[in-house]
């Protein structure tokens, strides 16, 4: 499935193809989609789910999207920005991909997206949604099918405010996404929190923070600690005996299907925000959850749903232009229209090509032995991000 640099056969094939290049690409030729994602090293669970979700949509159509043959090239970025950049260059130059997707991390997206969109490639982000690309650095060929990074934090801010909590203690890692998270939260909660703490990126031990937190006597805690950091924090928070006294709130990242198994019962009952859950009631979602489980033998995660939606969005636009990407403007308009059945139900793009969507409030519950989430409410309806105003397209 993946293509190497030194596949001799491939090089020869390319040399032959080069001779034919003068002829315009006909609609019968497969559309090439490049996926750069993280398949090895830390955080690979996310990349694997995005890939599997995307592949599922492809398989459902028998290797086609929107009725057109698609050739998917997947490469592993190993979470290194320079490697992602190099893969992108290669995909554009050698594989002549016209559409790209797959990047998980904001820093890799910032490294890759501006360059490839400038080169005329369409980029559909299945995860990373840094503020730069939603605001100042937006581009007409860039679409984010998942979220702007702040969305879920904003939803939590609104929910916590609505619930009437008054003494909030909030914490996040000391890096841009962490700062964005807390400012996103405060955008809807208000600036008045009794504690705002930044922890070390990759930190494992939160005893010091938890002790200080207990001392500050908050009535609720909001945290954004993605990956292993969140697992550690929740376990330690629960061990400190605080779970029953001071409720915690967080975005879906620490309560997702990829992670819940590792947190265990410590997460039970925690309220979190997400734009998707497996119990959203629509036909597309039901079918997706069922076939994902059948294909991979596990529950789909948020990231899998995003990968799947990315593929379905692309499919809808390919269908609109009959698979002919030389009609770039028509293709762009079709992407913008987003006429596909999202697993999230209602879905549309804002002016900056970021989702305008509902954000739900979920609770971690147990179904049999399995921890998962249940929707208990809605924080936002048709929520748009805060950076759209900065976007001059």
């Amino acid at each position: 499935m993946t293509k190497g640099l030194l596949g001799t056969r491939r090089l020869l094939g390319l040399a032959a193809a080069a001779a034919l290049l003068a002829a315009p690409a006909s609609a019968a030729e497969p559309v090439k989609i490049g996926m750069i994602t993280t398949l090895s090293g830390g955080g690979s669970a996310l990349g694997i789910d995005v890939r599997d979700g995307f592949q599922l949509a492809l398989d459902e159509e028998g290797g086609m999207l929107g009725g057109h043959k698609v050739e998917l090239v997947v490469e592993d970025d190993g979470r290194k920005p320079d490697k992602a950049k190099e893969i992108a260059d290669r995909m554009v130059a050698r594989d002549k991909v016209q559409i790209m997707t797959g990047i998980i991390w904001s820093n890799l997206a910032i490294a890759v997206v501006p360059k490839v969109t400038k080169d005329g490639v369409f980029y559909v982000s299945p995860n990373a949604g840094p503020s730069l690309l939603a605001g100042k650095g937006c581009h007409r060929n860039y679409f984010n099918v998942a979220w702007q990074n702040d969305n879920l934090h904003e939803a939590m801010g609104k929910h916590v405010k609505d619930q009437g909590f008054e003494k909030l203690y909030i914490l996040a890692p000391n890096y841009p996404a962490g700062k964005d998270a807390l400012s996103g939260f405060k955008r809807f909660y208000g600036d008045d929190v009794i504690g705002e703490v930044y922890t070390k990126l990759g930190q494992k031990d939160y005893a010091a923070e938890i002790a200080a937190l207990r001392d500050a006597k908050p009535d609720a805690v909001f945290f954004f600690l993605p990956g292993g950091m969140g697992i550690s924090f929740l376990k330690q928070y629960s061990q400190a005996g605080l779970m029953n006294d001071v409720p915690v709130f967080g975005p879906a990242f620490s309560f997702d299907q990829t992670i819940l198994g590792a947190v265990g019962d410590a997460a039970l009952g925690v309220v979190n925000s997400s734009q998707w859950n497996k119990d959203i009631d629509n036909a597309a979602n039901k079918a997706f959850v069922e076939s994902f489980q059948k294909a991979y033998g596990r529950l789909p995660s948020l990231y899998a749903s995003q990968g799947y939606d990315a593929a379905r969005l692309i499919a809808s636009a390919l269908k609109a232009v009959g698979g002919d990407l030389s009609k770039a403007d028509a293709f762009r308009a079709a992407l913008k229209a987003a006429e596909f059945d999202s697993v999230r139900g209602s879905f549309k793009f804002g002016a900056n090509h970021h989702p305008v969507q509902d954000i739900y409030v979920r609770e971690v519950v147990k179904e049999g032995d399995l921890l998962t989430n249940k929707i208990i409410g809605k924080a936002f309806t048709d929520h748009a991000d805060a950076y759209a105003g900065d976007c001059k397209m």
Partner: protein
Amino acid sequence: MLLLIEQVLNGLQLGVTLFLLAAGLTLVLGIMNLVNLAHGSLYMVGAFICASVAGATGSFLLGLVVALPATALVGMAVELVVLRRLYARDHLDQVLATFGLILFFNELVRILWGPRALFLDGPSWLSGTVEILPGIPYPAFRLAIIVLGLAVALFLAWLTTRTRLGMLIRAGASNREMVSALGVDVRWLYTLVFGIGAMLAALAGVMAGPIYAVEVGMGESILILTFVVIVIGGIGSIRGAFVGSLLVGVVDTLGRAFLPGLLKLFLMPATADGVGASLASMAIYILMAAVLIWRPRGLFPAHA
């Protein structure tokens, strides 16, 4: 004041966790003169084995009982196949080969257990909190770690100073020929010591499992902390590892807990949060630099 006491306790607990890892590493460093980057991998393997067994049987203790010898076996196998050939080599070779082992183990664990983090919780009788001082409930599991760490420190002190094995170990460090002359096969002695080191790493991994995330790559970040501990304490010295661990644990914890607050006395709150968090994350490295200026071979150099 109470908060300060609690934070110092937190620091000690972090230090003890580090000590479990540092003790095994410094033993191998000091005796075999081998720098083993893959020590963190053994920590990870221990945690994963324990998590699987505990997940299947529901018993943390059973997981612990299986994980320790299993990891020791893994460690001894690695010693037999690879590391044994590296004792006579220079440190660069050791760094490179064990760097390769890290890549190998991370990927192997990912193939065997998948990319997702695993669940591991302590035994239920340690799940609550203990009120150590009025108004300070402290997690029982963390207290258990402190107790266990101190017990391991005492055990190692006894092992290296009072037993025949300890004597052989110390003799082996300074004089391979003499130990050989005593009729002891140094090669097996080294394998055994490596097994003990691996078992200590597994113990650290198992005890860290219920507190931290059990995930691929969990060994590396803590390995670097462990290096800082050993540099501060002095290579090959169990005592140095103990003191170094506690120092690093306390400095790191107090830095995180109080630096931002302290800086708020001089700086704008927003700036203080950022600068404080940055400084706190660098505090232990600054500590290391300070110790180096004062004592280039650590606080308790084992060999002259």
